[in-house]
């Protein structure tokens, strides 16, 4: 696994050569750098991501010949999501435990990119295939996301906007490092005695690494989606998922919820199904199945608007008890 500090060191090491050519080309350096880093840190994971990219390219070529309205063209790319199973079953198949670095995030990004290319109204743009590769190995997002389509990077590449690094970006990267290393470690130690600190440890690690990814990418002139937006302010389940792991929440709503809902599944059932998928994406376990089911039920049937006064406070407390409890159950419970 690439630690947050090593991730930052790799990014800074690539920043130096990127200063010698036009900023928009740094995306290529970061993709190739991500491939090389993955090959050194986790060769099997690099192979799986590369195989998923190849699979996506073939699917786009094959499905792209079908009419845009064709169901197969619309949904054929979902087969790519089966590659996520590798993370959970590889030790049964390979009989050894390998590092699965970034496979979960890369597979989703590759899928999104392939899906976006297939949704194109124009003739199949073959040059866009390259962005499937970039989405798979883009170094800032390789380890822990966020989730986005390679075509988002292409748009920024083609726009060739000047790099605008602010002091805040440097501060946010350092904040991410402190969160993911110091705070997460301290919370994990305290969490041995006080369980909710284990949740804080997970949050600090995830938030910190997301900050490193988002703001280090800006060093190169590329903006990534923001994963966390003051989640502690959330008052309803809906509000929570608009603030917590936003890129993944948006992905399941757009690519799981919407297709199901548009095909007649009730919004509640589509929501629950989408979040069960998200739970199993985290880990193929009963614990995460229950986690996804409960979050889906909370989102589908829970309050949509925040309440005022003491009722609002109680709702907020209830929300966080559920969030922390489900996280502990899924990650550390008997069925994790």
């Amino acid at each position, binding site marked *: 696994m690439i630690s947050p500090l090593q991730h930052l060191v790799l990014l*800074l090491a690539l920043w130096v050569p990127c200063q010698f050519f036009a900023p928009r080309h740094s995306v290529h350096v970061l993709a190739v750098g991500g491939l090389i880093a993955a090959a050194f840190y986790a060769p099997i994971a690099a192979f799986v991501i590369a195989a998923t990219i190849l699979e996506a390219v073939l699917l786009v070529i094959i499905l792209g010949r079908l009419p845009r309205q064709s169901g197969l063209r619309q949904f054929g790319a979902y087969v790519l999501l089966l590659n996520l199973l590798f993370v959970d079953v590889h030790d049964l198949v390979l009989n050894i435990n*390998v590092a699965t670095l970034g496979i979960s995030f890369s597979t989703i990004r590759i899928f999104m990119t392939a899906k976006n290319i297939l949704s194109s109204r124009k003739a199949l743009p073959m040059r866009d295939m390259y962005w499937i590769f970039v989405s798979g190995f883009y170094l800032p997002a390789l380890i822990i996301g966020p989730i986005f389509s390679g075509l988002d990077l292409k748009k920024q590449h083609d726009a060739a906007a000047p790099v605008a690094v*602010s002091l805040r970006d440097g501060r946010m990267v350092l904040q991410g490092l402190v969160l993911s290393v110091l705070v997460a470690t301290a919370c994990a130690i305290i969490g041995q005695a006080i369980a909710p600190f284990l949740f804080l440890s997970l949050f600090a690690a995830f938030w910190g690494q997301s900050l490193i990814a988002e703001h280090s990418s800006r060093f190169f002139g590329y903006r990534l989606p923001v994963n966390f937006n003051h989640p502690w302010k959330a008052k309803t389940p809906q509000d929570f998922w608009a603030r917590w792991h936003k890129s993944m929440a948006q992905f399941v709503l757009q690519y799981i919820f919407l297709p199901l809902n548009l095909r007649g599944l009730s919004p509640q059932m589509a929501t629950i199904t989408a979040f069960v998928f998200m739970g199993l994406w985290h880990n193929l376990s009963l614990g995460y199945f229950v986690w996804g089911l409960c979050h889906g039920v909370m989102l589908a049937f829970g309050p949509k608007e925040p309440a005022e006064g003491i009722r609002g406070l109680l709702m907020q407390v209830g929300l966080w008890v559920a969030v922390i409890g489900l996280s502990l159950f899924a990650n550390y419970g008997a069925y994790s």
Partner: protein
Amino acid sequence: MKRAPIYLILVLIGLAVLGGWSRTYALAPTVNCVYEMADLNAPAADVLFVGTSRTGRGIDPVYVQSRLADRHGIDATVERVALPASYPQQFRPFLQRYIEHRGAPKLVFFQLPYNFRSERHPEIDVPINTPRNLAHASLSELFSIRRDAQLNDYDEPLSRIFHRDYASIPVMLMNRLEMNIYAALKYPAHLMNGLTSECQGETLYRHNHPLRLYGDITDAVTFVPETPKRMVTRLKEQKETAQYMPFAIKGPMRRFENAQILATLDKLKRANSRIVLFYLPALGESRIPVGVEEDIASVFQNVNFAHPMALYQGPLADQLAVSFADTHHVDNFGALHISRYFADISGNYLP
């Protein structure tokens, strides 16, 4: 503020240099103390015990030294180095440093640090594990350990270089860089503590093991566990269920371990130390399997081999609670007998 990354790069380089110089690694005292022992401003010990946690729990150097003097009239200094976990490569950098700073011990008892726990496959023969016992090794030592490393073959379908814990050379370098940066962050606390070492006196010489159970045994010890019945029950269960990997010294599953042990022994031989390989038993073992001693003699030629297994056919045979603390480590009572055994045979090997 396009220069923000430059500032970050400069800060990280500065921290890495400071950490590489201060070596204030956030490690267990045992690892730091082992290297401090190698750097001591004192001549080499006459007798040096080198081994894993079994040695740390089983052999008390102070007791061995006093028994050598009292019972055998031999005035020899005795030291012990015990690093937990059976990493055969962990001792090379330490012994190299010991010999360079303090000279060669006259007699080295070197525990055969084979892995006997199948669950340890994933970690045991990945050549480089810097955050553990190779933290203080130099880069050249790390490269030396990697060079020509033939990994153990556990008959798995994929090469071990694909395993989760295997560190390629670039990853090894990144791990070292990261350790140095964290060491620099720890340095201010080190300064505020007045630069005092945690490895002094008894901690250094006797208790340089995180499990500070032993080191103060005497001949008068009649150790009785607090809850002998429960302990005996637990140990009996452990004894019945314990499964150890075979010695298989000539098998492909020991290829890497043998190569690393041989390289270490070569260093000691070149320094003119006399070497005695030894083995300490696990719970339930009472004899060395047939053929193993011949295999040891064949793989590690011209090196003596000693083991206290006879004790487990005699005085310690049925005394579970007063000879073992767990499956792999003896308790105080067992340590007394084992230390006594080694004190009594040391005279035979000392020049």
